[in-house]
């Protein structure tokens, strides 16, 4: 357990130096602040950018950064050194997962600044849950890929599907029908309702199925590849 903390701390030190991961954490929160303050279009739904970008952020940043961090550590053979130092695979994955989740939550905290105070607990609650699913998907890709190249070729399409489908679904009904089975689209729906009372059983069900699938795929990848 202590080793998970060590990994967390190591990642924290790396944050400002690792530009590819850093930009993932910063891009959408910064864009949200910018657009919400700069762009005012009449008839635009309230907090349009906050809700849209939150879901895109959630579908992109954790998947990309978890996969990038784990696959880099494999490629550069630093992961082996950790395993040799008796760091357990689950300690490592927990450390990386917690790190990615925490930084993304910090990003969500920034994006929440535009929301009315009463909506913030709900917003952060669904972000927290959605980020967990994304982190598991990212870790799954990181574990499955043996180097950064193969991780990139895996996470790009996955991240595109999850983060862009909610946006495309707004413009196209057919896409919406497909997209609704993704957790990101359901979170987008929840984001629009913005209340615990309005949550439909269908949304909960889809979220749970997504989460279970992510976890099952993760364990399948881990069983097949381990952390070698």
């Amino acid at each position, binding site marked *: 357990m202590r080793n998970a903390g060590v990994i967390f701390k*190591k990642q924290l030190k*790396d944050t400002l130096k690792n530009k590819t991961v850093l930009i993932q954490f910063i891009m959408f929160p910064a864009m949200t602040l910018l657009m919400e303050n700069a762009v005012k279009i009449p008839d635009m739904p309230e907090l349009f950018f906050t809700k849209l970008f939150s879901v895109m952020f959630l579908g992109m940043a954790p998947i990309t950064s978890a996969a990038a961090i784990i696959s880099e550590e494999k490629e550069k053979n630093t992961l*082996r*050194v950790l395993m*040799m130092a008796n760091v357990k695979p689950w300690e490592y994955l927990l450390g990386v997962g917690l790190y990615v989740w925490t930084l993304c939550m910090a990003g969500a905290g920034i994006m929440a600044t535009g929301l009315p105070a009463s909506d913030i607990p709900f917003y952060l609650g669904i972000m927290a849950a959605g980020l967990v699913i994304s982190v598991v998907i990212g870790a799954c890709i990181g574990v499955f890929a043996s180097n950064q190249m193969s991780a990139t070729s895996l996470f790009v399409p996955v991240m595109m599907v999850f983060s862009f489908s909610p946006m495309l679904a707004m413009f196209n009904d057919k896409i919406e029908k497909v997209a609704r089975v993704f957790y990101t689209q359901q979170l987008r729906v929840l984001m629009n309702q913005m209340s615990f009372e309005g949550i439909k059983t269908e949304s909960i069900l889809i979220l749970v199925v997504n989460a279970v699938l992510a976890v099952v795929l993760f364990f399948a990848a881990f069983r097949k590849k381990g952390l070698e």
Partner: protein
Amino acid sequence: MITTKGIFKSFAGKTVLSGIDLDIKSGTVFGLLGPSGAGKTTLIKIITGQLGADSGEVHVFGKNVKDLTGDDKKQIGIMMDDHGVYDRLSVADNLKVFCDIYGIPYSGIGKALEEVGLADSAKKPAAKLSKGMLARLKLARVFLIEPKILFLDEPTSGLDPMTMKYIHRLIKARRDAGCTVFLTTHNMEEATVLCDEVALLNEGKIVERGQPSEICRRYNHQKKINIHLKTGGDVSFAHDAESAGEIGRLIEQGRLETIHSSEPTLETVFIELTGRKLEAEEEIRYA
């Protein structure tokens, strides 16, 4: 300190190790020599429990490797040839990660960096280090834990002679402080100056073992004296009384430029034993 009995290992039907018996005494530098692909790394991995053998037993600290506890493992420093460092983190931060893992106070970092001569580069990102400095950082990382046993897989491969000598001094200093060192190399010269004992690994078997000087003496059956003449020619004489007169005459006549007796080196012993040159590959690489 480290013993192996009848280690067999094959990958996909290809036998890499067939019956390796070793007994490495405490406080010595042991060198495992062999050409590329001989199975040196594989044997280290088996001894350190990173890889299972098909059959055979490994004992470290008098215990089966499978039974080593976390505390035992904390006394074993392992540096494999492909191990990496955190490029973006500084030299000191790289070590801090391992201090945290092993529960060592950060005060040990200064000492370890001092030891390997990297104290001035503590704040440099690891990516900015030269190859020799990187090798020393990796050594500092294993030295940090003050191990009782050190496994070093090709600790000097591809380094310049200066850094190589420096690392030899470090390794010897560790041994003198009571550490047992198990290293691999394909550099015979290195083995001769560094190792108290060596074993030559070829085609899955240990073909010779012992102190380097003693192995060389054992293979000194040619016993020749080679003379280079001032006129440019080379002559060689048998190492016996009969030749003494002739050699004396050459000296009297002032025709002798240099004179050597041909003791075998580990290199020539290896070639004699296997008909293979150990560093052939490296020579191609550097050609």
